[in-house]
């Protein structure tokens, strides 16, 4: 199948055409530089995203703490991951990097706090 993508590596934003009919030999056209090809192949084979959000925190000096997946997770799991984040409540104290939900959606990736919440 031929897919259209916009390269995100630089402001040029090359319009890439990716033909992945042959999984062993994915063809990329429209890229100006090699980074475009790498990006295109990863986007059609295993696109990944970092998901960010926030969760309510009890007993904290802030109402909510922001969180993120510690590394990118498969794109198709974004909304499942958000559902898990939304079902989570944190309790102060929270430190940046604290695990808020571990192994989110069985991705092997933890959701971690991105801000501190002091206990009040």
């Amino acid at each position, binding site marked *: 199948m031929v897919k259209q993508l916009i390269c995100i590596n630089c402001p040029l934003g090359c319009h890439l055409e990716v033909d992945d009919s042959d999984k062993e030999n994915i063809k990329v056209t429209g890229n100006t530089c090699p980074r475009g090809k790498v990006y295109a192949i990863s986007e059609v084979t295993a696109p990944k995203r970092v998901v960010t959000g926030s969760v309510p925190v009890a007993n904290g000096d802030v*109402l909510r703490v922001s969180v*993120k997946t510690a590394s990118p997770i498969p794109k198709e799991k974004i909304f499942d991951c958000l559902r898990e984040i939304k079902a989570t409540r944190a309790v102060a104290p929270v430190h940046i990097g604290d695990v808020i939900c571990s192994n989110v959606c069985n991705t092997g990736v933890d959701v971690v706090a991105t801000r501190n919440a002091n206990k009040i």
Partner: protein
Amino acid sequence: MTYRNIVIVGGGPAGLAAATAAYDAGERDIVILEREEMLGGILNQCIHNGFGLHTFKEELTGPEYAARFEQLVYDRGIEYRLGSTVINVSADKVVTYVSEKEGLQKISAKAIVLTCGCRERPRGGINIAGARAAGIFSAGTAQKLVNIDGYMPGKEVVILGSGDIGLIMARRMTFEGAKVKAVVELMPYSSGLNRNIVQCLNDFNIPLMFSHTVVDIKATDGRVSSVVIAAVDERLQPVMSTAQEITCDTLLLSVGLLPENELAGYANVQLSPVTNGAVVDDQMMTDVEGIFECGNVLHVHDLVDYVSEEATHAGKCAAAYVKNGNTATEYVPTCGTNGVRYVVPQKIRKDDNYEQISLRMRVANAFRNVELAVLLDGEKIVSRRRPIVTPGEMETVVLNSELVKRVKQGGKLEVTLLGGTK
């Protein structure tokens, strides 16, 4: 009245970096005044990732980026006051601030660094006709409501303006269960990053409509019920025959940022009509001796990394000023021509001996395969080839020590675009 060497107005990324740099340059008598109840400024509500690639070689969220700079301030024991709003800065460098705890206070400072950031252009600034109803927010206000306070501004959303904040909010509202029906952009291009167009819009099939604008807002019972959008012609005037109505309860505006220069104005600092920030020299000093400016209050940056970089320089220079006083007598003026909208700093001191000077600028239009050239009295002294330059991205040209020496002998510095196609 108390007396301090350096007062930093604002505890966002610029203020934190300036304070740290001033300290590291040997200055100990520093105070940061922050109006909010926490340091970090607007980064606290920017919970998405993508910050700090340049500075830390890793992708951080806004609060994480802020926390790293906050830590530098804590480690050094630099004094800061929260909930403290500066209401006046005078030309003789007296800073007046108020807070619940301290009442009204005046500090006479040897140097002041203004790092007050910027604000969003409101609806009134772009003359959108229609109902004056609830449900119209600047994107940043919506971002605060969602990310800090935990409330949803609406369920069906149209976003006007495809700057990064608008794009980020399109994704955030989608994440929170809202339906983003369209992002409407007046210009034929986006001022946002491609990465955000892909990951905030395309990932969720949110249409981005270029060369369109909102021409009417309709309301039922005081809340937005729909917006009417239309295509615009080359002169950016709406073509009413193309009007179409989109049902929605929310309109988010991401239509530009404006440096907040009220305080600079009170101190009679000369402002640039192009950047809406102060006119500064290469030490980030304004035309009022001892008042410095950096970060988004000086000119709106694209990446916070560059804010930190600029503010670090300003903090260092403020410390040097406190120590040595003003040594500047003559300047080489800078300017942008042929598509370069502005250059900061607007003038280069002939006296100092910095090893390098960063010239920061923005272009007026997108160009491909263009040469970004620095001309000294008409003669090309540096040139950088760019596959593309766009108005949404800040460009930087660094003059090395040799070039700096040359520039100081010159009369006029010009940054210009050569060749290139639109």
